[in-house]
C-alpha cells in the first residue's frame, strides 16, 4: 500500500501555445500537509486546476485511492458583491440541498451547517452575511464548507493571503488540527514562506518546472529558494 495520496507524472500545461507547466513529476504524501510554493507566475494555481481536473494537460495525475476520491476545495476568495445577502448557513444549504434555498433549509442541511461551522469555530456567525466577515472568518467558513463534503484531500489556494498575522496563525492551527485529527491530506498553495515553514510536512517548490520537493528542512535552503525565487534573502525570512 502506497503512502502517497497523489502521484503527478510528467505533467505539462500549455495555454495558447505558452508553456505554463513543464514536465512536473512529484508526489503528495497521504495524511500530511503539503505546501506548493513558487514565485508569482510559477504556475501554482494552474497546477491546482490540473489536479482538480478543470483544465487540459498532458502527463498524468493519479489519485492513489482511486479517481473517485473526494476533494474539498477552499478558493482564495469569493466574488462577493457589497450587497450580497448570502449567509454562512446559505452556503451550506446551497451546497448540500437540491431544492432552491428560497424554499427553506431542510433539517439535515441545518445539522450539517451547525456541525461544520462548529468545527471551524464559526457556529456563532451562522446567520451573518459573508460580505461582513473578515478575511480570516470567511476562510474558516469556506474550510468548514469544504470539509462538509467529507473529503480525503483538502486543497487550499492561498488561504492566508490578505489575512493579518493573528488570523493567519489561527488558520494554521486549524489546518494542523484538522490534519492530525482526521488524517486529512492537505495541499496548500502559499506565498508566505514563514507560514509554509511553520505548518508543512512536505514542500513542492515549482517555477514552471519542479525546483525541489521534500521536507521543509531539506527544501527551504538558500540554494533552492534562490533557484525558485531568485532571492536567497527570503530564506532568513522563512526561518
Amino acid at each position, binding site marked *: 500500500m502506497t503512502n502517497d495520496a497523489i502521484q503527478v507524472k510528467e505533467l505539462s500545461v500549455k495555454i495558447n501555445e505558452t508553456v505554463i507547466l513543464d514536465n512536473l513529476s512529484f508526489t503528495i504524501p497521504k495524511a500530511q500537509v503539503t505546501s506548493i510554493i513558487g514565485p508569482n507566475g510559477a504556475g501554482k494555481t494552474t497546477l491546482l486546476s490540473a489536479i*482538480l*481536473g*478543470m483544465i487540459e494537460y498532458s502527463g498524468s495525475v493519479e489519485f492513489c485511492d482511486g479517481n473517485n476520491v473526494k*476533494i474539498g*476545495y477552499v*478558493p482564495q*476568495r*469569493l*466574488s*462577493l*458583491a457589497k*450587497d*450580497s*445577502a*448570502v*449567509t454562512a*448557513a*446559505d*452556503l451550506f*444549504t*446551497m*451546497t448540500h*440541498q*437540491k*431544492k*432552491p*434555498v*428560497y424554499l*427553506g*433549509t431542510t433539517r439535515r442541511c441545518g445539522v450539517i451547517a451547525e456541525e461544520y461551522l462548529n468545527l471551524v469555530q464559526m457556529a456563532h456567525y451562522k*446567520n451573518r*452575511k*459573508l460580505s461582513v466577515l473578515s478575511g480570516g472568518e470567511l476562510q474558516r467558513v469556506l474550510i468548514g*464548507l469544504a470539509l462538509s463534503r467529507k473529503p480525503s484531500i483538502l486543497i487550499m489556494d492561498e488561504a492566508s493571503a490578505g489575512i493579518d498575522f493573528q488570523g493567519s496563525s489561527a488558520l494554521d492551527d486549524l489546518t494542523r488540527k484538522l490534519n492530525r485529527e482526521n488524517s486529512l491530506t492537505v495541499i496548500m498553495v502559499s506565498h508566505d514562506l514563514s507560514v509554509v515553514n511553520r505548518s508543512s510536512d512536505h514542500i513542492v517548490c515549482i517555477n514552471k518546472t519542479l525546483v525541489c520537493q521534500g521536507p521543509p528542512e531539506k527544501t527551504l535552503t538558500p540554494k533552492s529558494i534562490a533557484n525558485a525565487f531568485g532571492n536567497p534573502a527570503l530564506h532568513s525570512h522563512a526561518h
Partner: protein
Amino acid sequence: MLNEIFLVIYHFLDIVLPFAWAEPVFMKNALIALVLIAPAAALVGIHLTALHMAFFGDAISHSAFTGIALGFLFSVNPSLSMAIFAVAISILIYFVEKKSNIAMDNIISVMMSLGVAAGLCIVSFRKSFMRDFQSYLFGDILTVSQGEIIVMFLVLVFIVIWSYINYNRLALMSLSPLLIIDKAKSRGLSKLLFSLLCAVLVAVSIKVTGMLLITSLLVIPAVTARLIAKSEGRIFRIAYMIIAGTSLFALIVSYYLDMATGGVIIVFLSVLFFIAYLLRAVWKISL
C-alpha cells in the same frame, strides 16, 4: 376549450376584484400577464444581477429591435422573430466570449450596437414599420392577447422547473465557479441555458415595459430585494412581492391617469429602490 378557461378566470377576477378598473377584458388580460411575469422576472433577475449580467440583459432587449424589424420585413409574427433573434444573439455572445480573449462587456457592447443599428437600417428602409414599432419600444400591456398569455404561462412553467433544478448551483457559481468543482464540466452549459432563458423571457415580456425598459423590470426588484434581505433565501420572496405589488398598483394608476403602464411600473420600482436604500442605510432595517 382555452376560451372557456379564460372565461372561468375572468369570472373569478370579477368576484375577487369587483372594481371599475378591473371590468374591461383588456385590464383582466393585463393583470393575468403581470401575475405570470412577476415570478419569472424575479427568478431570472436575481441571477442576472448576481452573475453581473445586467448589461447582457440590455443587449438582448435592444437586439429585439432587429428581431422585430425582421419580423415585419418577412411578414413573420414579430414576437416570434424577436425571440429567435434574441436567442441567436445570446448564443453568439456566449461563443465569442468562450472562444476569444475579448472582455464580456466589450462583446456585449458590439452585439447591442449591431442589434440596434441593423433594426434602424431596416426600419428606415421601410418607414411604414415605424408606427407598429411603438408598442414594442415602449410596451403596451393593455394589448396583450390570450395567445400571448398562454406563451407567458408556458415560459413561467419552464422557468420554475429550471429554477428548482439550478437555483443553488447558479447562486454558488456567482460567488465562485470553484465552489462547484464536482460539476465543473456543466458550468458552461448552465450559463448558456441561463442566457437563453433570459433571451426568451425578455422577448415574451417585452410588451410589459417595452424594449427600452425591460431589463429594469428584471434588475431593479432583484437589487432592491438584495439590499434589504437578511439572507439569500429571502431574496426571491421579496423580489416577487416587489414586482407583483408595484405592477398591480401601476396598472391601476395608469388606468385612471391614462399613462403608459410600463413606464409607471419602472418609476414605482425605482421609488421603492430608494425607499429600501433609506430603510437599510439610515434605519438599518432588513427583512
